[in-house]
């Protein structure tokens, strides 16, 4: 069935939630490490085709199944004001026919092969995937390569699909005050960076797309030298590469636009917004501007990313971490409290905190308590015991993440699409293990301070919604 995808990487290496174009499925949390050695941890094979397309292959022979994905480096943060959500809308149109396929035919063929397929768009990328029996890899590669260059956008199909996307936005956002809060929070935390763009797009932008906007966007970004092929499953890398050369290698590279920097201005004081909505439960979203693994260039800067990741885990990874222990169990003021660090974004990003007060307590109390936890991290160095616990959980989670070939493919594709090396995975836990208590204290002081903070609060709108009574009609 259809549900919102939760934030993707529940544990360490976190990416932004994505908007799925089709039927969505939830993704499991995952982390990375290198010190474990067992057969399934096969090495990743990487190539670059002559036309610039990147190819990443990982063998996993547990089942006669293969995941085939193509990732384009285009998403919400590539978009301009007035045209937000264009990447996501184009993702929908990618199922609407090519020079040789009728609208919907792509999905029908994959279905008949017994395959599952979907696509998703995030701030950083747009990706398409099929999961099929290994014997069908060539067929889906042929189909996917076809729509890389041969998409046909028919006006009537576009009009209907734009209606579908407006329904998607209503379903995801309009009747869900907490989702609306996150969207507006993000647009206030970022003032001039395109990181403020909602991936699905503002409603007014969606309504004013034209079919030609889609064609232009496709023309600009969908080319082999702006794409990554990821294949994980019961395959031999040489054979996959030969197929990739046949189907993707035949296209000429294109000139890919260079984006203006749009560097976010420095925040010089607390920002705060309120939203009123149809809810009985107030809630709170906070965020501090922080760098990401992509924007950090020097080893010292990268070390800050590992320290922030450890910090986030100390706060909210497992029931023994600080936020559930303090806010939920000891102070008993929050029904939920969490932290989230989106560490693998293309652009400078946010360190998030959020919480919902429990019955009889206020958002103000939760806000104070969340910030008190941050102050504590600045004043007291964390214990070795707490660090060891985070490392142990990270290593175990890494092994668990290997259970799903789709999760493995997701990690690889998302790393390459923001320009990170695939061995980011293999080095991740080694890197976390180098973090010292003092480094955690230092990043807390440097980034998690009031002048760098945005707070958004959702309050009940005060309207009487108790009139929502059922009546039996017509029969």
């Amino acid at each position: 069935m259809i549900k919102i995808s939760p934030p993707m990487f529940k544990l360490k290496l976190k990416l932004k939630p994505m908007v799925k174009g089709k039927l969505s499925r939830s993704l499991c949390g995952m982390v990375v490490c290198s010190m474990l050695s067992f057969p399934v941890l096969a090495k990743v094979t990487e190539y670059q085709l002559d036309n610039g397309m990147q190819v990443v292959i990982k063998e996993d022979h547990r089942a006669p199944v293969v995941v085939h994905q193509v990732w384009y480096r285009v998403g919400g943060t590539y978009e301009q004001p007035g045209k937000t959500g264009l990447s996501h809308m184009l993702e929908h149109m990618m199922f609407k026919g090519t020079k040789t396929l009728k609208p919907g035919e792509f999905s029908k063929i994959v279905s008949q092969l017994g395959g599952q397929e979907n696509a998703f768009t995030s701030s950083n990328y747009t990706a398409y995937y099929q999961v099929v029996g290994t014997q069908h890899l060539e067929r889906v590669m042929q189909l996917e390569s076809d729509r890389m260059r041969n998409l046909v956008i028919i006006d009537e199909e576009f009009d209907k699909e734009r209606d579908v996307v407006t329904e998607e936005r209503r379903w995801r956002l309009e009747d869900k005050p907490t989702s609306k809060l996150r969207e507006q929070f993000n647009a206030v935390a970022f003032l001039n960076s395109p990181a403020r763009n909602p991936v699905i797009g503002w409603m007014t932008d969606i309504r004013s797309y034209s079919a030609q906007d889609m064609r232009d966007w496709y023309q600009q970004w969908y080319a082999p030298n702006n794409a990554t092929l990821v294949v994980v499953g019961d395959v031999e890398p040489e054979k996959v590469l030969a197929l990739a050369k046949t189907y993707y290698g035949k296209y000429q590279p294109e000139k890919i636009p260079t984006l203006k920097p749009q560097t976010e201005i420095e925040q010089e004081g607390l920002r705060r917004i309120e939203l009123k909505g149809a809810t009985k439960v107030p809630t709170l979203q906070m965020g501090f501007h922080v760098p990401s693994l992509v924007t950090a260039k020097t080893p010292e800067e990268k070390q800050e990313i590992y320290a922030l990741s450890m910090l986030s885990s100390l706060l909210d990874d497992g029931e023994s971490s600080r936020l559930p222990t303090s806010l939920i169990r000891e102070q008993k003021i929050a029904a939920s409290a969490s932290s989230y660090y989106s560490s693998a974004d293309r652009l400078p990003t946010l360190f998030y905190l959020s919480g919902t007060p429990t019955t009889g307590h206020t958002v103000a109390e939760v806000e104070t308590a969340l910030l008190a936890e941050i102050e504590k991290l600045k004043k007291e160095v964390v214990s070795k015991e707490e660090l060891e616990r985070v490392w142990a959980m990270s290593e175990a989670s890494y092994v668990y993440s290997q259970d799903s070939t789709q999760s493995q493919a997701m990690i690889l594709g998302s790393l390459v699409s923001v320009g990170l090396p695939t061995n980011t995975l293999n080095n991740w836990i080694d890197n976390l293990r180098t973090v010292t208590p003092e480094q955690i204290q230092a990043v807390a002081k440097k980034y998690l301070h009031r002048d760098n903070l945005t707070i958004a609060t959702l309050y009940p709108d005060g309207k009487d919604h108790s009139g929502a009574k059922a009546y039996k009609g017509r029969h």
Partner: protein
Amino acid sequence: MLKKQSNKQLFSLFAVVSLFFLAFTQSAYATVKIETWQTQGGAKVLYVYAPELPMLDIQVSFDAGSARDGDKWGQASMTTALLGLKTNQYDETELSQKINDLGAQIGGSVGRDMASFSLRTLTRESILTPALSLFNATLTDSVFDQAIFEREVQRRVVGLKRQDLNPGSLASKTFWQELYGDHPYAHPVYGTVKTVESLKLSDLEGFYKQYIVTQNATIAIVGDINSKQAKAISEQVLKGLPKGKKPQPIPVPAAPKKAQEVTIDFNSSQTHFKQGQIGVERGHPDYYALFLGNHLLGGSGFGSLLMEEVREKRGLVYGVGSGFSPMKQAGPWLVSLSTKNDSAQEAKKVVNDTIKAFMKDFDATHFEAIKDNLIGGFPLRIDSNGKIISYIAMIGFYDLPLDYLDTFPKEIKALSKQQVLDAWNRHIDVSKMTTVMVGQVK
């Protein structure tokens, strides 16, 4: 693999037979080899050897879902929530630290039929042994603490209040209540604000004592441990729990005698629409035909008729789908969508027309394509330990034959179009639908 036999025979024969298969079939054969036995306490065990990753999954399921709530709605779910927070040996902080120190994941979940508890851990000896011991403690040695109980009730109430103003949850809750009337499946799994607030700690203790017993348990095990280890683990996991007894079967639900339609006026931009009726129970011989037909009608996303008619042709929705949820007793068959308020009546009409047309006849080529999807897609359903444990837990809990997974594609393949149409017309009566709409329905 084994064909259908009586369970008794299976218990004695299966280990030998599957060893044979383990020896002679390696990876290429996409199937799941299940071993089964009973623990001394009478819990049924299903086990699959999966040596590829150094990890172990265990799921222990009890017939202790919300259908056992009686008039204390939310009792089952609150009992599940409290288990594993504190034990006689460790307070909450110590227990959570012990579990996290190992990188183990212990959790519980509850539905209408089932309360289930799971462990995921690495199989390295220094981790496996303490992880199993902690998992055992959460199930058998949990303390029902008044302060923790009150806190968890408050947290649950916040969640329930949030759901109260979510049009989708409201529609779903109303649909179950209308469809099942006085039956134990009717009420919401998590109860209501009022019923949860009136629960007492002694209610949960009583519920735990009655239902969390070995005779009422099914254990599913998947991972990198051999059969002998699995046998030992299955004894260890519930060690200390009383034998107890299986509860009486849940009563057979009575289907509504005529069509009913409920509209809830709600201030939302979309109308949430749910329509359906009571379907079949797990193990019903018509389930394959109903499932296959539903896959064509609304169960396979973009390959299905409802998606074609409501989304692809008319752009009315982001998602629309239908599905059977077979349970211990007949579970619902449900069509679900949400659309802007102005389109609600149109979407409803398209859904009804599509169902009616489908039940008269459908395209033979499309039917074959849908069969291909199910048969060809079968390996994808069992390509990870996580998916396999869900299946074997289901097979165990619902007493399905052990060869259920092998039989599934064969049964699908053998079905004719006429058999599917006949099964649908036996079970689904379009003149007796229960319909719920929540929104500003025009």
